[in-house]
């Protein structure tokens, strides 16, 4: 009931006085009520629970936290080590192995 991946709003319409939308999950389209995200626009990504969109995903924030983790990685790299503190050459070899 509470698992959710974000979907993309591909259509917005009204039904029985409620703001509704069609949401695209990588090709599978489902309906959701958009009353709780009144400012949502076509193309926005949203998290839907039990037929209701609950938030509009903020791309900027998504990019920011991702960038922060990347930075962590880069800081370690500048010291020539991965986050285990091992020399980077080893780490890369290790990473290739696991890929």
């Amino acid at each position, binding site marked *: *009931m509470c698992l959710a991946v974000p979907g993309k709003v591909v259509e917005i319409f009204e039904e029985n006085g409620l703001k509704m939308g069609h949401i695209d999950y990588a090709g599978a389209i489902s309906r959701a009520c958009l*009353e709780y995200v009144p400012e949502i626009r076509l193309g926005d990504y949203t998290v839907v629970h039990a037929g209701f969109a609950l938030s509009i995903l903020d791309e900027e924030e998504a990019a920011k936290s991702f960038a922060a983790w990347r930075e962590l990685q880069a800081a370690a790299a500048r010291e020539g080590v991965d986050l*285990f503190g091992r020399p980077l050459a080893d780490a890369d070899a290790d990473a290739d192995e696991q890929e």
Partner: protein
Amino acid sequence: MKHLDEYRDPALARKLLAEIAAVTTRPWVIMEICGGHTHAIIRHGIDLLLPRQLELVHGPGCPVCVTPVALIDQALALARRPEVIFTSFGDMLRVPGSRESLARIRARGGDIRTVYSPLEAVNLAVQNPAQEVVFFAVGFETTAPGNALAVQQAARLGLTNFSLLVSHVLVPPAIGALLAAPDNRIQAFLAPGHVCTVEGLQDYEAMAAAHQVPMVPAGFEPVDILAAILLLVRQLEEGRAQVENEYRRSVRPEGNPAARLAVEQVFQVCHRTWRGLGEIPASGLRLRPEFAAFDAQCKFALEETGEMESPQCISGAILRGESKPPQCPAFGKECTPEHPLGATMVSSEGACAAYRHANRQ
């Protein structure tokens, strides 16, 4: 989505794991309270990749798992009535009551329909004026806004044949009860990302301060979960207890005000019994008296029934984070997703089912 695939990047996940290993110096116990997190952790094998000193315990955050047998029995009583069309999310159908399940009643010809949204149940009431449509309103803070709007919509349409059987539960009081238990081992919480999306962070900030326990709301991708665990371990190691929001792309500090307002207009806080945990004060929602006409318990004068769970099932201990599914003697033997004995096996988000689906012993 741009920035979604990145949250599944295996190289970054490995780096985060490495950083977690680097900062962990002592054993810590972290609970993921949300069934969605449990599912993601087991599916990606995250618990197996963490340093040995870190223990993840699974919490009671699956509404299907914590709905008490007595309430399932009330649902069954309603579903047996000839004038009732009983509607529910699909995952409630196989939950065993004290004697049978909704699925069995449906197999015998009962009119039980699965819906994806409570608004579908409202539409059914419009289309079937001669029958009573009852919707089984279970769930946490994430499903309450939808159910609130369904009631408001039914009132607007003047429906007299629509009602909810309400079994809503709230996460923060359950966290409080777990922390207050005398044998509590939980030192930090991976907070529920979508519950916080609705409710915001206030309650979690109060809880972190009062119990000196770090809390990090997290998204549901592998990198989200690892990043949140790293934030938690850093806090634990440094002796801090704060709310740090890993899931900023969805969780705003104030939550979703429109959703919160609708919930407040339609529901009020009440005591609730949780399957496996017992009664927790102020841990549930029920319809406000002005919406009593939409309350199936009042409308059909439902009686409290006795409650009987399988004596073999240890799901109570699993929901409290005391035991893991493979420790149950029935796990994978008498109890499987096809023939569940307890609620934690019934729901695909339940800890027992998550272990079973991932083929974990």
